[in-house]
C-alpha cells in the first residue's frame, strides 16, 4: 500500500483527496490530509464581505465535513518536510512518512514583507480583504466611510486571484454609487505592473471599464514602504490616502522555507504540464503553492487536478503518465451593478473576446460585462461546495481551454498556437519504488499519535522563514560567449532598432 500525504486541506487538497479516494481502494492507497485547523475558507467570497454581498458566515465551513470517509485528516501545524527521508514533521512532534507527497498549502498574504504595513493595518489606515478577519474589518471600515481618497493597491506579483483587486475597485465604485456618495470619494488603482491588464486584448477591452468609473490608475509602482497616510515607491513617488486597501505580498507557507524546498517567495518549483516538483522525487504541487505560469486561481487548481489525477492513476497502474496541463484559467470578474466579466485563457492564449463555452450562443460573454456572467459568479459558491470540493465535474466547463467561441485577431489569428503533444515527462515509476511496510490504518482525525522517538532537528538559522533577506552575492566574471545572429531573411531586417520606452 502506498502512503499519500496531502499538505493543505483547502480547495486543491480537499478536491484531490476526494477524487483519489473515489478512484483508488483504501487498501491500495492510504490518504492523509494535513491542515492547521478545521475551518475551510471560501476565499472567493472575501471580496463580497466588505459590501454586505455575503455575510462573513457565508465564507467558511468545517473542513472535515468536505473530506470524504476513508481519508485521514490531521489537524496540526507543519514544522517541515524532509524530502530525502520522505517524512512530514508536525509541530506536535508527530512524523508522517510518505511515498508520495502533494503540496497544497497555497499562498498567504504577508503584510510583514512591506515596511510599515503591519502598523498601518493595526492602526486602521490600511485595510485588506485577503483574509477572513481583514474582510470583516474592511466591512466595518466601509460602514464608517464618509469620503476621501481610497487607494486600491497590489504590493507585488504574483498574488492569488489576480483580478480580485480590480473586482474590489469595481464593487466599491458601484457600492458608492448606490449610496449616492461616489462624488465624495476618489479612487486610485495602484499596480506594480505596467497596466491594470497586461495582455493586449484584455487591456483594450477593459481599460475603458476603469475610465468610465472615474478610477485613476498608477502603474509600475514598486512599493517600498507604507507611511501613515501615504504609499511610497522605490522611485520616490508618494501617494497620499485616507484609506489604503492593499493586497499584501503573497508567499508560500513558512514550512516550505524551513524545508529548503521553495524559491524566493516560498513557492515550490514545478513542471508546467505535470505539476511535479522539479527538485524533489515523488512530490507534486497543486493549487497556488507552485510556480505554474498562469493565474493562481481556483479554476486553475481544478483543471490542473484533473490532469494530475489522470497521470497519478496511470502511474499507480504502472502506465506512462501522458496528460499535460495547458495552464487553463477561467475567471469571473465582478464589475459592480449586478454584472461581471469572464476571462478564459491558458499558457499560449491570452484572454480574448467572444462567447463561452459555445460559439455564438454562449451563453457567457468573454471580456464583456453582462448580467449572466454575474449569475455565473454567484452560482460558483454553490458549485464550489457541492461539486468542486466533492471532485465532481463542473457542467459545461472543459478541462483544457477550448478555442470555441473565441475571436482571434490580427497576428494571433495568423499564428494560432498549436499545442504540441506533450513530451512524456520523465517521471519515476511509482511502482518501482520499494514501498514502506504497510502500517495499520489510522482513525479519521487522528488523536495525538505517538511522537517521533527521535528528537527532531530544529530548523537551522539559514532556513529563513521569510526568504526575504538578501543572499550573499556571487561575483560573476565577464561572459565571453558570442551570441547567434537572427536567421530572418536579411531583406526584412529593419535598420532602425526599436527602443522601448521606460
Amino acid at each position: 500500500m502506498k502512503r499519500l500525504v496531502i499538505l493543505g486541506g483547502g480547495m486543491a487538497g480537499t478536491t484531490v483527496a476526494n477524487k483519489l479516494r473515489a478512484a483508488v481502494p483504501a487498501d491500495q492507497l492510504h490518504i492523509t490530509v494535513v491542515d492547521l485547523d478545521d475551518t475551510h475558507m471560501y476565499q472567493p467570497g472575501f471580496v463580497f464581505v466588505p459590501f454586505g454581498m455575503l455575510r462573513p458566515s457565508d465564507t467558511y465551513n468545517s473542513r472535515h465535513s468536505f473530506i470524504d470517509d476513508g481519508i485521514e485528516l490531521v489537524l496540526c501545524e507543519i514544522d517541515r518536510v524532509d524530502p530525502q527521508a520522505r517524512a512530514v514533521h508536525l509541530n506536535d512532534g508527530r512524523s508522517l512518512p510518505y511515498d508520495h507527497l502533494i503540496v497544497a498549502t497555497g499562498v498567504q498574504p504577508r503584510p510583514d514583507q512591506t515596511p510599515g504595513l503591519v502598523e498601518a493595518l493595526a492602526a486602521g489606515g490600511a485595510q485588506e480583504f485577503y483574509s477572513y478577519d481583514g474582510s470583516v474589518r474592511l466591512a466595518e471600515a466601509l460602514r464608517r466611510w464618509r469620503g476621501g481618497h481610497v487607494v486600491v493597491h497590489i504590493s507585488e506579483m504574483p498574488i492569488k486571484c489576480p483580478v480580485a483587486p480590480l473586482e474590489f475597485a469595481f464593487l466599491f465604485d458601484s457600492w458608492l454609487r448606490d449610496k449616492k456618495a461616489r462624488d465624495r470619494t476618489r479612487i486610485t488603482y495602484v499596480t506594480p505592473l505596467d497596466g491594470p491588464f497586461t495582455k493586449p486584448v484584455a487591456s483594450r477591452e477593459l481599460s475603458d471599464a476603469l475610465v468610465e468609473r472615474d478610477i485613476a490608475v498608477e502603474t509600475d509602482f514598486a512599493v517600498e514602504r507604507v507611511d501613515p497616510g501615504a504609499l511610497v515607491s522605490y522611485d520616490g513617488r508618494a501617494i497620499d490616502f485616507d484609506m489604503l486597501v492593499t493586497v499584501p505580498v503573497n508567499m508560500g507557507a513558512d514550512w516550505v522555507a524551513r524545508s529548503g524546498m521553495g524559491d524566493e517567495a516560498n513557492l515550490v518549483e514545478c513542471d508546467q504540464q505535470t505539476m511535479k516538483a522539479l527538485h524533489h522525487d515523488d512530490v507534486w504541487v497543486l493549487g497556488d503553492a507552485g510556480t505554474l505560469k498562469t493565474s493562481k486561481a481556483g479554476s486553475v487548481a481544478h483543471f490542473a487536478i484533473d490532469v494530475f489525477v489522470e497521470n497519478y492513476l496511470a502511474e499507480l497502474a504502472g502506465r506512462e503518465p501522458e496528460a499535460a496541463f495547458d495552464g487553463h484559467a477561467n475567471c469571473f470578474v465582478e464589475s459592480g451593478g449586478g454584472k461581471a466579466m469572464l476571462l478564459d485563457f491558458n499558457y499560449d492564449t491570452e484572454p480574448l473576446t467572444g462567447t463561452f463555452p459555445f460559439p455564438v450562443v454562449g451563453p457567457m460573454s468573454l471580456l464583456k460585462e453582462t448580467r449572466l456572467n454575474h449569475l455565473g459568479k454567484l452560482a460558483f459558491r454553490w458549485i464550489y461546495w457541492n461539486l468542486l470540493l466533492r471532485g465532481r465535474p463542473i457542467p459545461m466547463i472543459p478541462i483544457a481551454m477550448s478555442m470555441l467561441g473565441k475571436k482571434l485577431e490580427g497576428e494571433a489569428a495568423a499564428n494560432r498556437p498549436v499545442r504540441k503533444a506533450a513530451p512524456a515527462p520523465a517521471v519515476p515509476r511509482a511502482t518501482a519504488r520499494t514501498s514502506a511496510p504497510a502500517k495499520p490504518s489510522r482513525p479519521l482525525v487522528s488523536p495525538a499519535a505517538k511522537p517521533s522517538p527521535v528528537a527532531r532537528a530544529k530548523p537551522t538559522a539559514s532556513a529563513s522563514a521569510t526568504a526575504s533577506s538578501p543572499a550573499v552575492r556571487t561575483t560573476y566574471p565577464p561572459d565571453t560567449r558570442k551570441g547567434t545572429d537572427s536567421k530572418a531573411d536579411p531583406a526584412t531586417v529593419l535598420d532602425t532598432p526599436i527602443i522601448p520606452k521606460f
Partner: protein
Amino acid sequence: MPTTRINGRPIDVNDEGFLTVPEQWDEELGAALADLVGQPMTEDHWQVIRFLRNDFGPRQETATLRRTMTVGGFPTRELFELFPGKPAKKMSYIAGLPKPKGCV
C-alpha cells in the same frame, strides 16, 4: 515579430524591442542595448546583468526584483539606484531577456 539591426547584427525582437531569442545576446550586444536606452554601465551594473543571465538559464524565466534580492543578493533600493525608473524592465531589456511577466 520584427528583426532589427543592433550593433551591426540582425536580432529578433518583439514589438516593444525586447529580444525574443536569448541566445542571440552577448555582452557586446548588452552594451549596445544599454546605450540605446541611455543607461550607463559600470561593473556594478554588469554584475546584476550577469546574475539575471545565469539565473535565467535553468529556469527560463526572468528573475523578479524579489528574486534578484533574495537569490542574487542585490537589495531592491540599490537596483533602483543603478537602473533608475523601472529597473525590472531596464535590466531585462539590457540582459536580452523577456520582461518579468504579469498576469491577465
